[in-house]
């Protein structure tokens, strides 16, 4: 089996720094190369995000199979669940679960909502969607390939539940970008 972080303390710290900046500045692409040898099927950024955040206290859903699934179970110690709605973290390596199907938290405890980590094909912040909201001075741009065609529609619906809602981390290779529930996506027509 492939190893986890070569240094668990500083690996997790630099992984978290990327995740915190990604959540604080939606759509700004962060480098996350703390994990040097991810298992087959997992992007370094997505695998590092799981190692940084998931543990025995966080039910985890993933569609990863075989060695990648074993790697996640072994290195995070998180209980793997079959039911999407029961997971605190979700890692989608192929088809993303519908945003409405995951735990959105409650109005009093919106922090109990799930965080969805999605492996996508590419991320590019030079053009594409126009993102606005907290964390964004004027607007950020983001192009994502590899998301469902109706993602922007699902996202708009997710925003209507605020303060409930799912937060998304998009990962491609060693890069990641955050979409907290507050971010508004406008598609260029």
């Amino acid at each position: 089996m492939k190893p986890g972080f070569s240094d668990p303390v500083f690996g997790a710290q630099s992984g978290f720094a990327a995740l915190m900046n990604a959540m604080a500045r939606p759509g700004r692409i962060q480098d996350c190369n703390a994990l040097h040898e991810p298992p087959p099927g997992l992007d370094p950024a997505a695998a590092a995000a799981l190692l940084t955040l998931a543990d025995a206290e966080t039910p985890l859903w993933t569609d990863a199979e075989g060695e990648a699934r074993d790697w996640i179970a072994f290195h995070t110690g998180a209980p793997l669940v079959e039911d999407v709605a029961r997971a605190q973290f979700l890692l989608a390596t192929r088809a993303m679960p519908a945003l409405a199907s995951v735990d959105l938290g409650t109005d009093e405890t919106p922090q109990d909502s799930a965080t969805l980590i999605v492996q996508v094909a590419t991320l590019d912040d030079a053009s594409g969607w126009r993102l606005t909201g907290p964390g964004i001075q004027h607007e950020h741009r983001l192009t994502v390939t590899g998301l469902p065609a109706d993602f922007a529609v699902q996202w708009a619906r997710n925003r209507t539940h605020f303060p409930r809602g799912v937060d998304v981390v998009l990962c491609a290779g060693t890069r990641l970008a955050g979409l907290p529930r507050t971010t508004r996506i406008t598609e260029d027509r």
Partner: protein
Amino acid sequence: MNAMPPRNTPGSAYNFAYLDEATKRMIRRAILKALAIPGHQIPFGAREMPLPYGWGTGGIQVTAAILGPRDVLKVIDQGADDTTNAVSIRAFFAKVAGIATTTRTAEATIIQTRHRIPERPLTEGQVMVFQVPMPEPLFRLEPRLAETRRLHALGDYSLAQVKLYEDIAKQGEAGTSYNHPVMVAGRYLMSPSPIPGFDNPKLHNSPAIMLFGAGREKKIYAVPPYTAVESLDFDDHPFRPMRAPHACSACGSTTSYLDEIVADDQGGRIYVCSDTDHCRENQTP
């Protein structure tokens, strides 16, 4: 991110930055959700720290969870780098994390603060960590936490507005010169921690990440960069940040926040900058 310094050796007495990794993960998860829901208080399992509640245990735990080996830490207490609380916390992290510390706002990547925001404008690379004694802005108006949670869920802040109305009706102005509640991103009422009202406008659309940690009350909350933060007020009584109408005796600044100091036994007073780094910068030509 290669070639991390080998500070986390079995020979050292503590894990890097004191907290164990499981605790850091728990705090980190809370910080990410706090950034996703600006102004919303998130409960966390605050640990016992090697200093008493009320001395910044919440801020220290947040700092420990985000701190990396390349960070440069500044700690201020009421704007000053040289007070007991600031000196102790700086020394604590220098010891348990071996990181660089500074008193200069411009050089710091993390600034832990008790009750002030530096005068020098913050930048995108900086994180402010506030020590919070009482995170609940409705605390004096509604003592039941279960009820305040419900009011936050409903966005019902009429209690705070009535309190502000009564203050203005009785005294002609808001009754709070510090810890004046703010609305974050138009949704959550938030305690800015006991910073003076003078500092409230610095929370609005700041380029820096603002994290708040309350150790005794076990809550974490956050304001992301470039987020609207408005002091609670009325259209016909807009919020006015207050400042002593004097110049600093040391540097002559007429724009910085001032501390009043009794200078003799004849009732004499002088005023000096509360932000010691800002004052020193002003004095060096």
